[in-house]
Every structure is written in structure tokens, then in C-alpha cells.
């Protein structure tokens, strides 16, 4: 379906790169590389040049760690969203937050998307999205409390659980007044999941795309890649791109990434193999 992300609209067949921009000193992959606001801004400039349609700005790392309250989270992201909004009017700005008060402040500062990695932990988040015409990402966490790691989680059928929770979240968002064209579902690899769960969700992603809701996947350098290939954090791009290809073939629309260019190439290549995207240039055998 046509996708509306705040002030931006995208065609049915568009695939989108959502580049991760951390305003954190401790996120797992970049380890504070963009903690300083100017470094974070440089990162935005870079990913825009690389062709990202969306930036996903986060002020709190997902893993357990130092407690960051809503005030501190706002200090990290609200002014930054304003700065990015004024510098890049055509860029989709997403903010990675589960808290309604933070969401309200960033929407007022110009955010288009609320990326709720924690599956609706704050029930008022959908009301903020509705009030501001923002899109919302409905993730599956298996009921995990924000910023906790999965511990001995089991599912009878992980995909059935993902579908039940994300669709219920999507319906709750629509019931709250969010535009149905602004609702995205995300299985949330590694969140409330062990590696076998994340692999199964990847393998069966077509069951999510078949619902008709646009699907976001966040695979970049995650532990399920590291465990599957027995590679450290610095050596997970190949596995990330393999998982990306499988999700792209299944019809995922939004890819939350650290590496814009290789992911874009992977998704475009798969899109052309699948017959959904014309190749860039056709002259071989046709001159």
C-alpha cells in the first residue's frame, strides 16, 4: 500500500533506507561515534548523500545500561531533530523512542515517524502519532520490558506471536486515529528473541508482508548474525546483507541500517531479480 511517513509519501513499490543515527554514548555498534551533536549531524549529512530516505534518531540505547529518563532523552534528541528538520526539509525523520512525552516533543520539532522498538510499552504513544499525523512502527518484543534482554524466551510459534502482537498494535494505532497508510510493522529481530527465533522470522517474513501492512526490518550487525556465523561485531556486514536479501525478496519495504550503500545495492538487486524494479541501465545485447 502507499506509505505516508509524516509529510512524505512513497509509492507502492518504493523500498526505503532508514539510516541509524545515534545520539548516544553507548550504542552497540557505533559505541558513541556520533554522541557529539556535530558528529551526529555529520552522520546525517553522510547518509543523505548516500541516498537514505529516512534517518532514525535515537537517544537511548536498546540494551540495558545507564538509566536515561525522558528529560535526558529529550535533551539528546529534540533540538537535534529541529536542526535536521531545518537542514533537510525533504528527509524523513524518525525518532527511536517508546515514550509518549518524548514522542510529543520530537513531533513538535518536526519528526515524521515514531519508531517504537518496544512494542507499545507506553500505550499513549499511538495518541501522539495520531495527534501529529506521524507514522508509527509497530514492533514485536514478546512483551519484553524496554531495555531488557531476552532470557529463556520460548514461543509455540514465534511468527504467530509476531503477527498477533504487531497486528494488534497496528489496529490499536488505527483505532487511535493514526492514518492506516502511516502504520508499519516490524518483527524486531533479536528483541525478545533468541537467534533461532530471529532466523525463523527472517525465513517466514512473507507471512508478515502478506498482511498488507508495510514491513520494516532492522537486521544491521545484530547478534543473530554474529551467532549464526560466529563473527564479532566488526565482521557482520556479509551476514546482515544475506538476511537483508531474504527479507527484500519477501517484500520488506523499509530497512533500518548502519550501511546505506551496500544495503541499497542489495535491496535493489533483489528487487530487480524479483521483477519489481527495472535495472538501472540496459544495453548489454541491446545496442
Amino acid at each position: 500500500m502507499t506509505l505516508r511517513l509524516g509529510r512524505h509519501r512513497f509509492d507502492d513499490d518504493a523500498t526505503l533506507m532508514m539510516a541509524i543515527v545515534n545520539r548516544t554514548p553507548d550504542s552497540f555498534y557505533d559505541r558513541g561515534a556520533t554522541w557529539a551533536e556535530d558528529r551526529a549531524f555529520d552522520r546525517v549529512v553522510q547518509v543523505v548523500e548516500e541516498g537514505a530516505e529516512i534517518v532514525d534518531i535515537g537517544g537511548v540505547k536498546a540494551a540495558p545500561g545507564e538509566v536515561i529518563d525522558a528529560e535526558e532523552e529529550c535533551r539528546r534528541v529534540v533540538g537535534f531533530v529541529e536542526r535536521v528538520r531545518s537542514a533537510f526539509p525533504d528527509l524523513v525523520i524518525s525518532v527511536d523512542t517508546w515514550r509518549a512525552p518524548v514522542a510529543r516533543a520530537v513531533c513538535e520539532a518536526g519528526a515524521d515517524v515514531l519508531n517504537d522498538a518496544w512494542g507499545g510499552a507506553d500505550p499513549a504513544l499511538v495518541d501522539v502519532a495520531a495527534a501529529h499525523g506521524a507514522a508509527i512502527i509497530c514492533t514485536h518484543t514478546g512483551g519484553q520490558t524496554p531495555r531488557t534482554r531476552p532470557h529463556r524466551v520460548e514461543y509455540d510459534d514465534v511468527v504467530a506471536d509476531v503477527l498477533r502482537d504487531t497486528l494488534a498494535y497496528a489496529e490499536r494505532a488505527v483505532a487511535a486515529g493514526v492514518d492506516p497508510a502511516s502504520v508499519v510493522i516490524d518483527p524486531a529481530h533479536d528483541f525478545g528473541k533468541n537467534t533461532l527465533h530471529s532466523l525463523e522470522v527472517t525465513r517466514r517474513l512473507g507471512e508478515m508482508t502478506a498482511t498488507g501492512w508495510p514491513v520494516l526490518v532492522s537486521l544491521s550487525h545484530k547478534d543473530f548474525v554474529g551467532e549464526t556465523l560466529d563473527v564479532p561485531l566488526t565482521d557482520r556486514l556479509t551476514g546482515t546483507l544475506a538476511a537483508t536479501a531474504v527479507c527484500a525478496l519477501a517484500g520488506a519495504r523499509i530497512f533500518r541500517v548502519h550501511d546505506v550503500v551496500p544495503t541499497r545495492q542489495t535491496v535493489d538487486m533483489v528487487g530487480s531479480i524479483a521483477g519489481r524494479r527495472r535495472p538501472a541501465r540496459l544495453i548489454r545485447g541491446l545496442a
Partner: protein
Amino acid sequence: MSADAAAPRIAVVPSPPALLPSYAGRQDPLPEVRAAAVEACRWLLAPGPSEVVVLADALGARVGVSLLAAAGWTGAVRAVGVPGEAGVPPDPGAPAAPPDALLVVADGSARRTEKAPGHLDGRAHPYDERTGRALAAGDAATLADLDTDLGVELLAAGTPALRALGALVGTRSVSAEVDYEGDPFGVAYWVVRWTCRS
């Protein structure tokens, strides 16, 4: 002016399948060739002919019809085949004299560079130069005399159509305009407009 309007118009355009919509990528690899060819078709159509005769092989006819459509033509098209090899008889539906609007879809050798579809053949350049000079000069006799066998060896798919063009125009006086000449992918392309004066 009125005599010019009635004079038969002939456009020569190339036949790469890359010009067909079914082979379109996200970028056009032949923007200059396409623009010149469509513009030449518009010129062909400007006097308002009752039909357009397309002189081409099967692929050329597809490309020609597509270019005419891109130029806005929705009227009748009569495709006239050309003998593909020496000894094949001419199309019985071929006109005896140049019609009001004739689109010839033909190109030169596909062996002009090492990266060309047919790799490099040293004979390609002199062969195409002779064709190009004849097209630029309105020299029908030279076109009618193009070497069919060498054309086959040089993967010059347009040779039969150009020979047929030469025979059709015969000794009529021609004014010629060359809009494009090049070989961006190792195949010789021309976009040329001829007006028959007598």
C-alpha cells in the same frame, strides 16, 4: 514552400532494441540517439501524411513503430520488409517510388570497437564511412550498391534496408541533413533526413 511540403520525406533512424519501451531501464543509455530519432520522426510526420511506410527488418519495424508512437503518430503504418540476405526476393508490397513519408530503420556495423557486440573488425570503419558519406550526401546510388555479404560479416543489420532505400530513391535529387552520427556502444547509428526534390 508548397512544393517542399509535397516532396517525399525520408527519415533514417537506427534499430537498437534499447530504444524499445520493453527494454527500458531506469536511465536511458541512448538519450541523444533517441532524441534525434524521435525528432526526425516528428519532421517526417509534420506535413500530415496519410500513412507512414516503414522500411526495415522485423526488429527495425518494431523500433520504427515505437519511435513513431513516441513522436505522436497514431495513424496508419505500412511495414515493408527487406530481403535479409542476398537472393531473397524483395517484398511484393514495396512501393515503386518514395512515398510521402518513409521511415528507414537501419544501422551500420556492430564490429567497430573491441567492446562492440561483434568485437573489432578492421573493415567496419571504412564500410560505415562509405555508408555515412552516402547518407550525408543524399547519394542513393552508393547505398543501392552497398556490399550485402560484407554487411552480414560486419553485423551491419541495416545494409538490406539501406540498399532498398537506395534503389527506391534511384536518380532523384535529394537534400540531406545529418542529425546524429555515432557509435556509443560499437554499433554505427545515423539519424538522417532526406527530402526528395524531384
